[in-house]
């Protein structure tokens, strides 16, 4: 499709205004600068081809994010031959870092859950996000990093709000489980948590022998 000079100028203005947003999301989804630039370029190419299908320019951000996420999913699957992850295959459905880390009243005043979050480096969290299945990674990035509302995410991905809600909940749960596993492997669990575990073991031991 050949665009007129006016159309080229319109799409240029619309896209350049949002290019930082697209670039940031692409970086979060791909995790690599070269792949992110390529993803944005592919998105712009597809958007230019379909420019006449954009009827509501007030929703151009959602339109571009839809093209970007669809491009990411199709490219990612092609390149990595990545199996589609079933929404039911992941364990840890009710996992919560808070439940793992919060301490008994006896140790009130310590706050291991806050300590752990403050100990994590950006890199640790980025790795945990990168390990999320793509359906969940996309909504977590759009909601928690980009600050989009559920409505905006639903419009961007063309999925019902209920699906956005459940994917966000599931994505956060899996993310917290990854962070927990990482913290255990890297041995960066807060001291107050270790202390609480020791205390719990002592109490169990006492209960057994009284």
């Amino acid at each position, binding site marked *: 499709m050949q665009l007129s000079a006016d159309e080229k100028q319109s*799409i*240029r203005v619309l896209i350049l205004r949002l290019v930082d947003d697209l670039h940031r999301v692409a970086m979060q989804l791909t995790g690599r600068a070269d792949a992110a630039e390529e993803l*944005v370029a592919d998105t712009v190419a597809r958007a230019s081809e379909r420019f006449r299908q954009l009827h509501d320019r007030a929703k151009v951000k959602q339109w571009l994010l839809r093209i970007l996420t669809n491009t990411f999913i199709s490219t990612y699957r092609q390149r990595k031959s990545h199996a589609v992850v079933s929404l039911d295959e992941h364990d840890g459905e009710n996992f919560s870092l808070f439940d793992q880390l919060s301490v008994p009243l006896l140790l009130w005043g310590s706050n291991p*859950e806050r300590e752990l979050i403050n100990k994590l480096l950006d890199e640790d969290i980025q790795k945990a*996000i990168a390990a999320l299945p793509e359906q969940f990674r996309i909504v977590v990035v759009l909601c928690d990093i980009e600050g989009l509302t559920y409505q905006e995410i639903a419009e961007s991905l063309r999925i019902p709000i209920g699906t956005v809600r459940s994917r966000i909940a599931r994505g956060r749960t899996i993310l917290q489980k990854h962070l927990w596993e990482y913290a255990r492997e890297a041995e960066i669990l807060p001291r107050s948590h270790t202390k609480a575990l020791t205390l719990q073991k002592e109490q169990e031991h006492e209960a057994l022998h009284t």
Partner: protein
Amino acid sequence: MKHSTPKPISCEQALKRVFDFIDGQLKDRSREELEQHLAVCRHCFDRVEFEKLVKTRLGKLRKQTDSAELRKKISLLIDSY
């Protein structure tokens, strides 16, 4: 219209609303019920504070990218259509 007091909810009901609450998605009555529960339940209050903290921590990953070169490429790309 008379505004009635929010009805009490259980911890289980409260925890199901945590993500909607921190994302600003809870409607008036539902939010009031949760807020009333949080005012009397330390465990659920701490859980909400923790989830807010995680969300804020993720939000800090939103960093400015250097898109100068990319802008030039995009402009040239659009010209080719």
